[in-house]
């Protein structure tokens, strides 16, 4: 997407430049996250919840889709055990992100803790589409900025709730558009075609088999298919380096 890409981990280059690059990489996801954060804040107030619940949820369980679900669950007094199970299922997809998220560039224990805590879909997606050149400062700057869009968006939504009848319909498409462009960026060579086809197949199966848990099931199927693909490649003695 931008900047000079290097294979090796960078020496302590210019920190300011790294922070700037991280923030620049956050702008596109921010275009989706900020409006969605506003919608989230509006929903919190419209559900009759106190305003501070928006920043509280966005800090405790920084995960947009779960937070949107929780508003309804909390408003109806859903038991804690059900909330725990919902959290486990909705956020389970994050276990797959450790395969390629560049956490290794972060050395400071606190920064490392934050980076794992703030490993949302959008942060993973940006690193997946730009696999090289990550440094601790760039990564943390990206993640802090993404959380700021979400939390500030929520606060703006809470503030707007008394003024507006509702959010602008259709703005949530920004997240879909973002993932489309990131997929295009990650799929530049024909070596990526098998992975794309397997992902499409996984999603199609998941939508038919479990329409309510399609995201989780399709990711699980996709990982299983890749493992099978790996086994086949090893068996044939042919090792794909793509």
């Amino acid at each position, binding site marked *: 997407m931008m900047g000079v890409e290097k294979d090796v981990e960078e020496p302590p280059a210019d920190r300011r430049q790294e922070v700037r690059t991280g923030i620049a990489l956050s702008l*596109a996801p921010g*275009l*989706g996250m900020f409006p969605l954060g506003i919608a989230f804040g509006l929903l919190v107030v419209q559900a009759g919840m106190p305003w501070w619940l928006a920043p509280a*949820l966005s800090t*405790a*369980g920084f*995960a947009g889709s*779960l937070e949107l679900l929780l508003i309804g669950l909390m408003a109806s*007094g859903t038991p*804690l055990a059900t*909330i*725990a199970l919902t*959290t*486990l299922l909705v*956020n*389970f997809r*994050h*276990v*797959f*992100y*450790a*395969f*390629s998220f560049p956490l*290794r560039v972060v050395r400071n224990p606190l920064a490392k*803790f934050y980076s*794992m805590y703030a490993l949302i879909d959008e942060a993973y*997606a940006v690193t*997946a589409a730009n696999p090289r050149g990550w440094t601790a400062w760039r990564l943390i700057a990206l993640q802090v900025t993404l959380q700021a869009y979400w939390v500030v968006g929520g606060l703006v939504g809470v503030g707007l709730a008394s003024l507006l009848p509702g959010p*602008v319909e*259709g*703005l949530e*498409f*920004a997240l*879909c*558009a*973002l*993932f*489309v*462009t*990131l997929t*295009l*960026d990650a*799929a530049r060579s024909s070596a*990526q075609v*098998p*992975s*794309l086809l397997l*992902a*499409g197949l996984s*999603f199609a199966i998941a*939508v038919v088999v479990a329409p309510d848990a*399609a*995201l989780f099931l*399709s990711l699980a199927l*996709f*990982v299983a298919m*890749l*493992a099978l*693909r790996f086994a086949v490649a090893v068996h044939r003695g042919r090792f*794909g380096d793509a």
Partner: protein
Amino acid sequence: MLDPGYVVGVLVIIFAITFALRAVPFAVLEPLRESRFVLTMAIWMPVGVLAVLAASTFRSTAGDDPGHLWKAGVAVAVTTIVHLTGGRRTLLSVGLGTATYVVLVNLL
């Protein structure tokens, strides 16, 4: 009114479970970092995960209402064409794609 104990319970639960799901896999994979399997998965996975996220957000945006499907389809086409012909400027592609969808949904 919300019971403070209930709110604290929810916050603690979602923090603990979400953090564990994000952090534990790193600890599990750390000793395997040089393994051929993990290295290969790291190369094969991202593009497919991104495609799944794109399909999933497409579905959650437009899937509820059959009348919105073609509008979202047009917006995805606009996003793709702008991205491939406009020099892969993500902000521009996402901005024009989203504007297309907002206009179609609100004016048609």
